[in-house]
């Protein structure tokens, strides 16, 4: 993000004392992310105490500079939960000459335009896209489930070329859009770089389904949490490979693929996902998807992933061979959950037929970094975790 001026004042947000008997409180949800602008009194986070659930208002206007306590953590009253860089409601953004000119010509309030350029700056494409979308920003599509794939997105240029006349076979030629070209280039580069193989393991998600209903979440954060835990035992998969250099990570920076509709796909990253419980992962995934669709992601939001999960199951496909998100060494694709008759073995050893929801855990992995046996072992370990109540 853009740097703060050296004389910025950092103001603490403290766990409030809601009643004299309160000694501690738990963070339920963060309403703002680091870098977001805050007006004074605006809700920073939601907390839960033994007496009451409430919100913490921002004591000053400024920008949320640090979050110090994760969702689900319980801390004493008076603990610093977050810090706000006090000052203007947002750090003053600077607009390039062409952006100012276009904004003036179209009466655009640049403060509302999300920036995808370096340091979050508003680029020419950003303001043009804003205008094309009617100045309201992109409304999130009704379907919120993340979809497969990755690429740095860039909105279409304003004017589309006129469609060509059909040729004698009825074919109408048109150049590929920039988004398509960009995605295509990224896909090709990945397939040309990695020795991509795919392994599939079938998983019974009966317990997953039950648990997710209890928590009011989708299956994705549950599977994500299980994957993170399993990666601890299979560190070769939580890694990046560049040239001949393999970098393993103790922390898991989890990429979650998000569909942007006609504007393609993007993979925002949950950094240090290992610190989040299932609910925290669910909330973070929801928040990232929202920001992605509102074009509010920063470059830091999309870099540094060590493992990616994509979840296009809603479209009904059973198996897929996803393309690895460079420079990672693996990507996990969750396809449709389908009820099937399966053989279940009772404790006494007798077999019976039962109806179970099954999903295929499809993982593409880079044979330059690891072998099929390792990949299969990871997937079966993940499956066991998911199938264990």
């Amino acid at each position, binding site marked *: 993000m853009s740097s703060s001026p050296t004389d910025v004042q950092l103001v603490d947000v403290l766990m409030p004392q809601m009643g004299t008997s309160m000694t501690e409180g738990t963070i339920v949800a963060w309403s703002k992310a680091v870098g977001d602008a805050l007006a004074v009194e605006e809700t920073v986070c939601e907390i839960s105490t033994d007496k009451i659930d409430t919100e913490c208002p921002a004591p000053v206007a400024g920008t949320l500079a640090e979050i110090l306590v994760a969702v689900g953590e319980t801390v004493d009253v008076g603990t610093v939960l977050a810090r706000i860089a006090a000052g203007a409601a947002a750090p003053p953004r600077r607009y*390039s*000459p*062409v*952006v*100012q*000119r276009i904004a003036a010509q179209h009466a655009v309030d640049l403060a509302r335009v999300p920036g995808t*350029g*370096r340091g979050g*700056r508003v*680029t*020419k494409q950003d303001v043009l896209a804003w205008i094309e979308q009617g100045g309201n920003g992109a409304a999130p599509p009704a379907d919120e489930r993340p979809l497969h794939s990755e690429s740095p997105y860039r909105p279409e*240029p304003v004017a589309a070329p006129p469609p060509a006349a059909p040729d004698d076979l009825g074919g109408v030629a048109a150049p590929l859009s*920039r988004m398509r*070209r*960009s*995605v*295509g*280039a*990224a896909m090709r580069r990945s397939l040309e770089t990695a020795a991509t193989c795919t392994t599939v393991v079938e998983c019974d998600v009966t317990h997953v389904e039950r648990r997710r209903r209890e928590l009011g979440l989708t299956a994705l954060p549950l599977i994500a949490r299980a994957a993170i835990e399993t990666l601890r035992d299979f560190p070769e998969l939580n890694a990046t490979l560049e040239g001949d250099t393999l970098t393993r990570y103790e922390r898991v920076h989890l990429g979650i693929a998000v569909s942007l509709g006609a504007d393609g796909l993007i993979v925002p990253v949950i950094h240090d996902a290992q610190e989040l419980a299932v609910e925290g992962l669910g909330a973070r995934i929801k928040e990232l998807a929202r920001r992605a669709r509102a074009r509010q992601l920063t470059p830091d939001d999309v870099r540094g992933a060590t493992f990616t999960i994509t979840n296009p199951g809603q479209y009904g496909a059973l198996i897929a061979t996803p393309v690895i998100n460079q420079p990672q060494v693996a990507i996990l694709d969750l396809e449709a959950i389908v009820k099937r008759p399966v053989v279940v073995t009772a404790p006494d050893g007798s077999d019976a037929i039962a109806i179970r929801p099954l999903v295929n855990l499809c993982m593409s992995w880079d044979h330059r970094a690891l072998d099929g046996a390792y990949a299969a072992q990871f997937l079966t370990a993940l499956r066991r975790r998911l199938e264990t109540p």
Partner: protein
Amino acid sequence: MAVRTYLQAISDGLREEMRADERVFVMGEDVGAFGGAFKVTDGLLDEFGPERVRDTPIAEAGIVGTAVGAAIAGLRPVCEMQFADFVACGFDQLVNVAGKMHYRLGLAAPLTVRLPSGGGFSGGPFHSQNPEAWFMHAPGLKVVAPSTPQDAKGLLIAAIRDPNPVVFLEHKHLYRRVKGEVAEQSEPTPLTARVARAGSDLTVIAYGAMVHVALEATEDLDGASIEVLDLRSLVPLDEQAILASVAKTSKVVILDEANATCAAGAQVAALIAEHAFEDLDGPVRRLATPDVPIPFSPPLEDALLPNVARVKEACRELLAY
């Protein structure tokens, strides 16, 4: 149309103009019997004879100065400096006599000075220079620098027919490396820029050999749509084309093979900063050879001249800005 090398196209242009206009003649060191150090004038002596294909002593001031005299007398001399680097020996005649003549005396000096320029082949400090900026800075001289065979021929014809002194930069590294379609009986190429490839995300501005580096570097760069503008003429500079391209893409990288300080690209950058300020979505980037005499050993020379990798990097950085 025929496919010709850049060198052949220049020869063709010379030959056609000499056939069409008996005032046109060629002058330089080793251009006649030997056919020229690079064989550009090969065969001309046989066809046109020693009065019109003149082998001169080693005397660059003499070549340029006598060309001025002949031009005043109504002829159309086409001088050759054996290497662009040696034009320095004729600098005074070119800048002080030829360049200033029309302004001061109303006397035109329609001469052409061909400069085989540029490096990239271990020519060393005295056989690799790109001196165009010296002459852009001298009032009264036109300066052209083709990158394609068609433009090499067309701009040479334009130079010969121009009533003013024209410095013609032919990049010797392109002589046999670049081939293209060239019209027989070409028309003069206008002294304007040419869009070598249209694009919308970023413009690379270049001339001479650097046009080919620019095209190669931006052919397939992360799916970005990159425009390459070939300046072709440095004096006059096609300001309109430059500003139109910047208005379209808002991001520009300017390439010079010449030494960076006060190279042609510096003038282009100043023009953009002054007249296209409101079209810019990023800083104006320049890539040029550093202010170093061109070294001889290949790894040293390669480290200094702009190349495809460096152009890609600069474009990527600016695209991400």
